[in-house]
Structure formats: C-alpha cells, structure tokens
C-alpha cells in the first residue's frame, strides 16, 4: 500500500465511493418510486423529526474529528493541533476533540455517525455563498431561490394538522426553508410567542406589494401556528433534565419541550457559533464544541426520557471546513470539506465516508469525498422514506447509516 492509501483509512463502505451506476437506478424507476411515496407522504413519515444544527461560520473539521496519527496533521497544525494524548480516540486513526467528550456515551451506544469529508465540487469560500449553496442544495455555480427543505415540502406537503413544517430556534435566517410560501416559524420562547400571537389578526387580502404580502403571510403563519401550539403547550411535561444555560443549550431545551409536548412539526433548526475562527482559535473552538456536546447530551437524555429519541435524527451542517494549514493568527482560514455528524435513536453509529487526504490538496484545501447532498438524500429517502428525485436526482446516494 502506498503512503497515500495507508493514511487514508478506508472507513465503512461509503456510498459515495461506490460507482454511480450501481447506486443510481434509472430515472424512470425514480419516477415510479415518487408516485408510490407521494400518496403516503402526508400520512406517517413526517412523524419522524429532523433536528438541524447549523454550525455558523465554518467549523474546523480537522480539529473536530482529528486525524491524530497523520504526520501531515501535526505539520500543518504546529500550534493548533490537538495532541494525540488529548484526543478521544474513535479508531486507530481518528478521534474527537476533547471538548466533545460528552458525546462519547452516544458513540459507545452506537448512536453517533460521523461522515467524513463532506463538501461539494468547485467549492466556494464565501460564507454567504457557500451556506446558500448548502441550504438550497445547489451546484457551486447555480443559484436557487428555494431552500432544500422548502423543495421537499412543496413536493410532499406535511399533514394539514402540523403546527408548521419547521420551527427555527436561535438566530439565523430561514435558510433551508427560504423561498416558496412554506411555513416555518421562528420561535424564541413558546409561551411568549403564544401570549403575543393573540394580537395578530390574519388578513387575506390579495396585494401586489411584495413587502406587504410577506408581512401578511408571516401573520397567517403566526396565527396558524399559535392555534396549533396553544393546545399542545398547555400540557408540556416537566423535562426532568437540566439543560446548560448557554445559547445552544437553551435552544435545545426549547426544542426538547416542543418535542416532549408532541407538537407536530417535521424539522427543528437550531444554530450555534460563530465558528469563524480566523484568530485565537483554540479556546474559542473548545468552548463552542463543549457547549454543543453538553447541549446535545442533555437533549438526548430528555428525549430518551420522554420516549421520543427514536423519532429524532440530529444532523449538523456548516458552510465549509477550514484551511488545512493554520494561519499566523493562531487561527484558520476558510476551507472546504469537513465531517458532519448524525445522532439519533435510529442511527447506526460509526465512521462513514473517506477522510480526505491531508497531502493531496487543492489550493491548500481538502478534496471532498462525500457530496453534501448525500446527507440530504439520507434524510429524504432513508429517514422520511420519500423519493428524492427532484433534489438529488439519483446522483447523490443516501448513506446507509440508519437502522429504521
């Protein structure tokens, strides 16, 4: 085995690594599949909830899932490298950043899947453009107006009795829900939301002024969601789990309350950051990862306790990873591919995909090994059991990382 191969540990069979022809059925078959599922879509599959965790600013993948045996890693990261003895080992080559230690029980329970090298061809290193690419599911040069979840729900509407397609917690835009006339509700505090929603009077006058039309649409969303939430929130059970007091902890606590109260919703999005660590990365990144791990640990406990853990799939995303070589400011600049995680009661834990080589680089950046749309295909096809024709067009195979 050449040096390149030995360094690139081949992990579990990466769907992305298998030749395209074997995985992508002819398009006609996909159309057929779409029709079968379309009828069912409203019925059952959206009982399964996707929890999206946005890592705003571009998370440093190399210091999250650390290739601690790779000499190229220590060479590229003389100051920022995580020393081997501090890494929480996952395999003989890879380990988690020590701040992620609270996630180890999930790893041991085989509920944590790590997908290495997630990115896309001809990567864009602008925060805003790259997150737009991720959130609309587009090609690098293609500009789409509709978020990837909006595209899914346009094709497969959620049941009419749902409070909303998605609930957005924390700051950040509608992102994957943008475009279209879809229902995504931004919430900070559900009780406060209900108290204030009482003053909203929906108006259904047709207007040509787009700004006004937007406001009236948001009013209707509020009115509908408030009606649905009202009944549910009256009976929020005591979570019985203490959540950490930082922002991501609080967001996940609200998410847990909504889910424990069985508010019908297909997606909950939380956001955490900023991971844009151009300077003084070590303490900052440590804190961010630690908060994330603490929050997710409390969330898991609460959801297990309330019998919802098997209905949930937690997935992270971020606009990009960071440059392999650290900069002079004890930080890292914008890069490309990075690992992402899926956690949940029906996740088959393990390492997926191929960790990109740290020596075979493109402009100093990692070459992606798994297209990010494979994560979406996994959610759409495997988690919700829908056909993903529209979005991923059979070109981005789902990962085999879910049990159900």
């Amino acid at each position, binding site marked *: 085995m050449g040096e390149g191969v030995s360094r690139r540990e081949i992990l579990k069979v990466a769907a992305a690594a298998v030749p395209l022809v074997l995985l992508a059925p002819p398009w006609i078959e996909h159309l057929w599949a779409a029709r079968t599922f379309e009828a069912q879509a409203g019925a059952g599959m959206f009982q399964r909830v996707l929890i999206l965790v946005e890592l705003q600013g571009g998370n440093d993948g190399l210091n999250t899932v650390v290739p601690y045996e790779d000499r190229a890693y220590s060479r590229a990261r003389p100051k920022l490298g995580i020393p081997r003895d501090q890494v929480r080992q996952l395999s003989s080559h890879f380990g988690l950043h020590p701040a992620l230690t609270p996630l180890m029980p999930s790893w041991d329970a085989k509920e944590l899947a790590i997908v290495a090298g997630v990115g896309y061809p001809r990567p864009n290193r602008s925060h805003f453009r790259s997150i737009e690419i991720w959130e609309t599911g587009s090609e690098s040069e293609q500009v789409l107006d509709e978020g990837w979840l909006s595209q899914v729900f346009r094709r497969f509407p959620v049941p009419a009795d749902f409070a909303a397609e998605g609930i957005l917690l924390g700051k950040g*835009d509608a992102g994957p829900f943008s475009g279209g006339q879809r229902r995504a509700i931004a919430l900070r505090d559900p009780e406060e939301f209900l108290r*204030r929603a009482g003053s909203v009077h929906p108006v259904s006058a047709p207007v040509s*002024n787009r700004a006004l039309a937007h406001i009236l649409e948001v*009013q209707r969303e509020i009115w509908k969601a408030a009606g649905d939430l009202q009944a549910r929130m009256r009976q929020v059970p005591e979570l019985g789990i203490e959540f950490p007091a930082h922002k991501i902890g609080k967001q996940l606590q609200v998410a847990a309350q909504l889910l424990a109260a069985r508010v019908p919703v297909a997606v909950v999005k939380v956001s955490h950051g900023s991971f844009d660590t151009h300077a003084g990365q070590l303490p900052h990144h440590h804190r961010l990862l630690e908060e994330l791990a603490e929050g997710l640990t409390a969330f898991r406990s609460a959801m297990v306790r309330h019998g919802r853990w098997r209905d949930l799939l937690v997935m992270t995303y971020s606009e990009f990873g960071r440059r392999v070589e650290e*900069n002079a*400011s004890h930080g890292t600049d914008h890069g490309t591919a990075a690992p992402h995680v899926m956690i949940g009661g029906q996740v088959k834990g393990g390492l997926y995909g191929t960790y990109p080589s740290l020596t075979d680089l493109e402009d100093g950046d990692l070459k992606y090994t798994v297209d990010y749309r494979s994560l979406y295909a996994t959610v759409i096809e495997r988690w919700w059991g829908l056909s993903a024709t529209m979005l991923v067009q059979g070109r981005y195979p789902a990962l085999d990382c879910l049990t159900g």
Partner: protein
Amino acid sequence: MPLTFDEARHLLSRTGFGGTPDEIRGLIAMDRAAAVSQILNVPSNKTQTAPPRWVHRLPPLPRERRQWSERDRRAFREERKEESLELKGWWYREMIASRSPLLERMTLFWHNHFTSSLQKVKWPPYLYWQNLLLRLHALGSFRDLLIAIAKNPAMILYLDTQTNRKDHPNENFARELFELFTLGEGHYTERDIKEAARAFSGWHIDHRTGAFRIDLFQHDDGKKLVFGKSGAFDGDDIIALTIEQPQTARYVVEKLWREFISDQPDPVEVDRLAALFRAERYEIVPLLRALLLTDHFWRPEQRGALIKSPVELMVGTIRLFGLPLDDPLPLIRYGRKLGQDLFDPPNVKGWSGGTRWITSSTLLERTQLLHRSLRGHETGHAASMKGMQNGSESGWLTTEPIDVVQAVLLPLPPVYPSAPADERAQSVLQFVSDPVYQLK
C-alpha cells in the same frame, strides 16, 4: 412640477426617518430637483450628542494584560460591556436628535457595508472612531472612505489585518474587500484574494497610539498578481486597482438602489448610474442626487414597497411622535430582539434586511414594541398617548385632521378595516398597529 403631499412624504421617509406634517408641507412647494437638493444639503457632519467620556482611551497593552488576575479580566470585560451599551445608546440619541436624518441613514448604510462589531473588536472606543470616520465620508467620496476604512483600527481588528504577516498572510480582509466592499461575489478569483492578502500584510495598528502603521518587517513587498496585473503592490495599490474595476461602481450603486428605491434594481439604470458615479470620481452626493431623481424612485408603486429596519422603525416612531427618551437601554434591547443590534451586526455581510427583517418572531416583537412605546412603557413616559387622550397635547397628532394623521403615518391605505374610534389616541394606535406602518 411641485411635489404632492404623498411624494414629499415618500422622499422624507426613504431618505430619513419619516417627516412630520410640517416637514412634509415644507417640501410641497418645490419640484423634485429642488426637494432632493434640500434633502442632500447636509451642512455639517458633526454630531450633536456628547460622546461617552471614555472615547479617547487606548486599550491596555499585551504585557499589562499578561499580569492580570482572573478578577482583573472579569472587571475588564464588565467595563467593556458597560461601554458597549453607552456607545449604542449614544448613536440612538444622535439619530433621534439629528437635524440631518440623511447623514444618519448614510452612516448606518456604511456601517452595514463596512461592518465591524464590538463582539470581535472588543474595544468600544475603536468602534466610536469608526463611526466618526463613516459620518465624515458618509456623503463624501467613496474612494476616500475605502482607503480610510482599510486603515481604521476597528476594521483592522475586525477582519484580522492585525495578524496578517508576511510569512502567514491572513486572507480575511482581502476576501471581504472584494466580496462585500467593492466587487461582489463572482468578480474575482481565489488567486486574487491570496495575492491581495499579501499586499495588506503588516498593515497594523499600534496599540500604544491607536494609529495605523505599516510594519515593514511583516510586510511582503514582493510581486503580486491581482486582476491580471502584476507589481510589488501594497494595500493602497490593491484598493486603487479595485476602484478601477467598473464592477465596483455597479456594486455600490446596486446596494444604494436597494436601500433607497426597491429590492429590484433596474439593470439599465444601474449601469447608467454606475457610469455617472465613476465620472464623478466616486463622489456620493452626485450619485444620490441622480438616484433620487430616477423615475423609479417616484413611481407610485414604490410607495411602501420597502420594510422599515428595526432602527428606522424605533427612531422614526420616537421622532414622529416626539416621545421623550430618558434611557436608550430599551431601544438597544429591542434592536437586538428585532434583529438589528447597532455596532454588532450578525456577521461581516451585515444585516440582510428587506423581507428578512420580518419573521414570525420579529413581527410579534415589533407589534409589542410599538404598543409599549405609545403607552410610554419603553421611554419611561406615559405622557404622549395620555396627552392625546385628554386633548392637552399640542402636537400634530392631536391638532391635524385625522386623514392627515393617517397620510403621515401610513404610506398606503391601512389593511385592517378601521374600527370606529371615539378617541384620537385609539385611531392613532390603530394606524400604528396596521401592517402598513411597517413599510416605508
């Protein structure tokens, strides 16, 4: 042709924070060109509000900091937090008191263009200096502003030029210079960024004086290749090269179009205005004059076609209603909740604005804020509405006919059917609660 009431109202609400009936009537006798000239006539860019007392302080030097105990560090953070609030409060007061609303709006526009945040810079005086710089050039020359901002302490810290060194260039500033400040995405290459970053290496601030200086030991004076041209460029050369690109003028014009006219810039007009901007050597006032005199600006369908930013909503309401302000803290808190925290934009791209101002969460916050303000909760004074109720208030809200009050407060007819209201205060509350009040 003299302006109509609605046209004069439109001009004031788009270029400032809205106008009182008297201010609107003051423009009615004029034609468009004269009215626009009056708006653009900003006699002074001096501020009227006394700045916080600490604005000239310099940050502690690293060797001092190294000797600090944990307690010292905590005290330091607490002090900065206090100062941050004072700084934000200072700008709110200035916007409310200002006799040149356009100057405030343009300073805010540039703050959202050349973003920097307290969160990253961590030294409030530097953000104050930056604000002064923005207002100095707000209606001056874009070229001068660009050159000055690249050497501004808050910017140098915000985009990491401070740690851009010869051996390890930091790309942050070079990238945003092209992507967000001048050209826009897609008009440069990754190579251009990497090369330009080298030209800004060694561009540091001296914390002992707070002054910009080029650290020659950290400056890479080698050859660089940017936009297909090569030379031993330094940062000033890169800015000059960027300014030469016709796309820079187009990019700035388009952004100003979105600020003042609509979210759909007309490509033909943008090209025309961009050519004019270049011919005027990047002077901002001639560009604004031409922009405000386009037919597009005056079209009836543009009225109420933009959404007020949180700051416009709050400052505009306070100015229009003459609400007293003892403590700006509630404005700062609401600004944050509504998605516009002054001196702390969410990221280097600034506030996205437009329809994104309104989400299910911020719309409810806006309604609550307006109700509370008019009831005096947020300003500590219950005077305004009570005054209206018992007819003792002498302001225009009580003296003007009700249809004038409506025409001043709302750019379009209200969406909510008007409920019969016996009292003036109730009618006013109805107008302000209408979704149309969110528009400008």
